C-alpha cells in the first residue's frame, strides 16, 4: 500500500481545509462568494494539465476526483470545468442542459482544488464551481429534477426527505435531559433526525454525560445545505433567515452540530455567503469534545479494542479545515488503533453523497462510496468512522456483506465516555 498518511506540518487557507501554497509569489487575493463574472478572468489560466486528478505525494499518486474518475471525459474533472466555465463566461459556448448537468455531476468535494498548483485556481476554484450552479439555476437549467423535488420538500416539511415535520424529534429518548433555559442548542439536522437517529441519541447522551446544559430546538428546520449546494442560493437564504429567527427567539448563543453539512452551512454559508451575521458560536461535536479533552473535562473509560480508520467528511475537512479533532479524540480513546487510509485529510476521497450527487447521480454516488469502502478495507480496520450522518448513511448503504462496519464518531465516544446514570 502507498504510505502517504504521514502527518505533515501544513498551512491551510484561512477557514478552509485547502492547503496554502506558500512557495509562490504574486498570488492574487480574491474575495469569496462572488459571482462568475468576478472570477472569469482567472478561469483561463487552466491548461487542463490534469494535476487536479491526482493527489500528489512523495510516496504515491492516487486518483482523487470521483466525478472525473466516473465520468471519464475531461469535462468531469476540474480542468474541464474551469475551461467550460471560461467558455460560457466568454461566449465561446452556450448554456445548455448538458452543461448544467456536468456541473451538477460533482460532489463539490474540492479534492481537485487541493491539487492544482495555479494559486488562484487552488484557492478559489470552489467558488466558481458553486457560482456555475447558481448560474444554471438563474438560466432555468438547474437544479436537477430530484434536487428540485427535495428542495420542495424542504419548503413543505422543512426536511428534504418529505418526512413529517412533527416527527422530527421522534428519535429523542425520554431519558435525555434538556434545559429549556439553555443558550446552547444541539442542531440535529435532517439526516440525523430521520435517517441516522443513533447519532442524535449518542450526541444527546454525550452532552448529558458531560453535564452540558443544552436543548433541542422546538422548531428546527433544515439548515438549507442541500438547497444551497445545488445552486439555489436565494431559496437557501430564506431558509437561513427562518432558522436564524428561530435561534434568536430561543436565545441561542452557541450551537453544536453532529452533521458536517449543517456545520459548514451554519458557520460559513450563513454569515459569509448570505451575509447573515447570526453571531452564534458554531461547533462541530469533535471540536467540542476536543475542547473538553484539552480542559480535562472528559474521561474515556471503556476500552474499545478496535482498529478504526477515519474518513474525513468534505464539509468539515476541505470546506472548513477540521482534520485533527476527530483523530485526536480517537487517539485518546483506550484500545483504539487508528489506521489512516492512503487518501486522508486534504486528500481524502469523497464518499460521494454530497452536493446533490446521491439524489441525482446514483451511479456516481455508489462508485465513489465503493472506492472509499475498498480503501478502508485495505487498512484491515474493523470500521470506517466519520462524523457526518450523510457519510455514515452512504457507507451503510454501500457496504456489502458486513465486510467492514461504518460508525459515527459520536457512537464511539458515547460507548467509552464515563456515563451519568440515565
Amino acid at each position, binding site marked *: 500500500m502507498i504510505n502517504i498518511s504521514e502527518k505533515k506540518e501544513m498551512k491551510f487557507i484561512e477557514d478552509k481545509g485547502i492547503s496554502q501554497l506558500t512557495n509562490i509569489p504574486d498570488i492574487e487575493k480574491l474575495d469569496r462568494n462572488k459571482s462568475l463574472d468576478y472570477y472569469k478572468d482567472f478561469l483561463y489560466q487552466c*491548461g*487542463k*494539465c*490534469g494535476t487536479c486528478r491526482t493527489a500528489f*505525494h512523495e510516496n504515491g499518486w492516487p486518483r482523487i476526483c470521483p466525478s472525473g474518475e466516473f465520468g471519464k471525459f*475531461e469535462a468531469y474533472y476540474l480542468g474541464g470545468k474551469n475551461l467550460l466555465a471560461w467558455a460560457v463566461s466568454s461566449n465561446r*459556448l*452556450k448554456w*445548455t442542459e448538458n452543461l448544467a448537468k456536468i456541473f451538477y455531476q460533482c460532489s463539490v468535494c474540492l479534492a481537485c482544488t487541493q491539487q492544482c*498548483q495555479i494559486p488562484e485556481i487552488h484557492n478559489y476554484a470552489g467558488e466558481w464551481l458553486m457560482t456555475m450552479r447558481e448560474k444554471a439555476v438563474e438560466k432555468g437549467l438547474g437544479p436537477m429534477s430530484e434536487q428540485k423535488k427535495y428542495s420542495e420538500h424542504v419548503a413543505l416539511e422543512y426536511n428534504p426527505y418529505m418526512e413529517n415535520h412533527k416527527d422530527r424529534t421522534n428519535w429523542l429518548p425520554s431519558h435525555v435531559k434538556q434545559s429549556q433555559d439553555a443558550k446552547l442548542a444541539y442542531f440535529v439536522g435532517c439526516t440525523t433526525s430521520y435517517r441516522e437517529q443513533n447519532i442524535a441519541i449518542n450526541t444527546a447522551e454525550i452532552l448529558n454525560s458531560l453535564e452540558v446544559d443544552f436543548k433541542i430546538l422546538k422548531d428546527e428546520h433544515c439548515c438549507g445545505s442541500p438547497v444551497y449546494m445545488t445552486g439555489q442560493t436565494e431559496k437557501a437564504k430564506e431558509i437561513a433567515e427562518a432558522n436564524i429567527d428561530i435561534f434568536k427567539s430561543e436565545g441561542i448563543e452557541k450551537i453544536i452540530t453532529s452533521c458536517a453539512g449543517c456545520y459548514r452551512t451554519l458557520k460559513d454559508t450563513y454569515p459569509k455567503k448570505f451575509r447573515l451575521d447570526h453571531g452564534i458560536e458554531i461547533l462541530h461535536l469533535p471540536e467540542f469534545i476536543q475542547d473538553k479533552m484539552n480542559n480535562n473535562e472528559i474521561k474515556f473509560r471503556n476500552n474499545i479494542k478496535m482498529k478504526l480508520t477515519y474518513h474525513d467528511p468534505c464539509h468539515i475537512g476541505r470546506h472548513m479545515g477540521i482534520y485533527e479533532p476527530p483523530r485526536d479524540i480517537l487517539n485518546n480513546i483506550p484500545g483504539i488503533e487508528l489506521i489512516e487510509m492512503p487518501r486522508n485529510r486534504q486528500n481524502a476521497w469523497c464518499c460521494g453523497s454530497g452536493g446533490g450527487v446521491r439524489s441525482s447521480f446514483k451511479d456516481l454516488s455508489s462508485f465513489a462510496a465503493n472506492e472509499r469502502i475498498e480503501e478502508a478495507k485495505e487498512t484491515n480496520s474493523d470500521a470506517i468512522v466519520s462524523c457526518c450522518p450523510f457519510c455514515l448513511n452512504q457507507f451503510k448503504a454501500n457496504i456489502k456483506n458486513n465486510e467492514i462496519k461504518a460508525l459515527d464518531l459520536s457512537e464511539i465516544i458515547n460507548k467509552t465516555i464515563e456515563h451519568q446514570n440515565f
Partner: protein
Amino acid sequence: MFKMNNSDIVAELGKIVGDRYVSEEPEIQFLYHYDFITAEPEGKCDIAIMPETAEEVQEIVKVANKYKIPIVPWVSGINFGSIATPRKGGIVVDLRRMNRILEVNEDDMYAVIEGGTAWADLKGYLDKYHPNFRAGITFSPPGTGVVPSCLCYGMFDLGMIGGTGAEFLNGLEVVLGTGELVRVGSCSISNKWYGRQPLPDLAGLFIGWEGTTGIATKVAIKLWPKLPYREDIAILAQTVDQGVPLLLKLSKAGLGIVDIIFVNMGWCQAIQGFKEKSVAMNPVELGIPDFVGLVTTQAYTEDQHKAQCKAIEEICKEFKIKPQSAKSFLESFPSEMRGGFVDIFPGFGGYTPFQAWGCWNFSRGGGGEWIGSYCSTSDIAKYYNIAREITLKHNKPPQFYSRIMFGGHYCVARANICFDKNDPEDIERTRIILKEIFDAVHQLDGVIMYKPPLWVVEHHKSKTLSSTTKLITKIKKLLDPNNIMNPGQGIEGD
C-alpha cells in the same frame, strides 16, 4: 472539413464502447477542439470516444474507415505543437480509459503499459508495487500521456542515460490505420518486451509520426533502478555562453550523471511562479546570473557518490565556477519565491515528478508555446542568443531551456513564449515572435523542431530530401490507405 451524419455514427460507436463513452455533445467536444495552451488555431472535434481495449480501438478504426472519417488519437492533448488538435474534424479517440500497467519486469527493467497511461498512473503504480524502480520523470504535468510523450520524442530526467522517450521504448502494440493490430519489437514473437533488437526495427513506423500511422495501444518502457545516493547540483553562471561549455564537458565525463539541463533566468523566474510583470526582462544588464544549470548524479555506494561529486566540482573549477547543492541554491530564495522548484528535487524535500502548474503557465496568463528543437550541442548558446534578442525586441522576457542528451550526443533547445490566452493581441504577438525565432534558429544547420505545429511541418517538408519524402508517403499510404489517421498533422500532413 469532414461532414457526416453524426448521430448514426455515434450510435454505431456506442455499440462498441457503450453509450456513455461516446459523445457528440458540444460541451464534451469543446474540450477537444483546442489544446488550451498554445497560440495555434482551434480545430474541430465532431465525436469524442473513450475505448477500453485494443479490440475496441480496432473496431473504432474500422468504423472510421467505413465512413472515411478522420480519427485523432488523444491522451491529454497537451503538447506545444497542438498535434492532437483535430484539424479535419472527425473522431477524437481519447485513450485515458486504457491506463493500466499490465506488467512490470524487474529483471529486464521494463513496464508494459496501455496507450492511455498518464505519467501519474505509472509513477503511482511503481511507487506502490515496485518501489525500487522508477520511470523517467517528465517535467510535463502528471496528467500527460507516457506513450504519446515517448512517440513524439518527449524527454525526461534520464535523458543523459537513454536519450529521448522514443529511445526508452522497447516495443509497441499498434492499431494501424487499417484497423489491423501489429506488434513490433521482441514482443512480436515472444511474451518478452525487453527490446526492439534484433528484428527489423519497425518502431520507426510510429515514432515521430504524430499519430498519423496508428494508435499505440500498448508499449513497453524502460525502467531504471532507484539508486541510494543522489545529488542535484546547481551551477550558476553570468551568461549562457559561459555556462554551456561546462555542461558539455560534464556531459562527456560519465560521473553517474543521469540528467543535465539548464534554464535561463527568465525560465527560472517562471518556474518560481512570478508573473510576467515581475520578471527581470534582461537579467544580464542587471548583473543577475542568466544561466542556471542543474546536474543530477546518482551512485550505488557512498564512496562512489563522493568521488563523482568531487570530480564534478573539479571540472567546475576549471571553468571558475563553484557548484552548489540544489537544496542550498533554493534555500537562497525566500520561501515564497521557490515556486515549482520545490517539486523538482527530492533532496529539497520536494516530490517528483514535477507538479508545476504547467510550463505554459509560467506567465500565469495560461498560454505558452515554444520553438523546441533537437540540435547539435555546439549550437545551444547560438540558439539562445538568437531567441533572446528576438524576444527582447518584442518586449517579452526571454525564456530558454536546454537538456543535454544521451551522454552529450545531442541536445534539446527550447525558446518559450508565454502569453495571456484571454488576450487576442498577445496571442497574435506571440505567433509573430515564434515565427521569427523559428526562421532565425533554423538557419543553424541541424536544428529540427519536434512536436511541430502545422506551419513548421511545411518547413520540414520543404527541406526533406525528395526521395525521403516519397518513402514517407509510401509508408503512410501503406499504413493508413484512407488517410484517416490524424489528417492535417505530422510530416505527411496535407
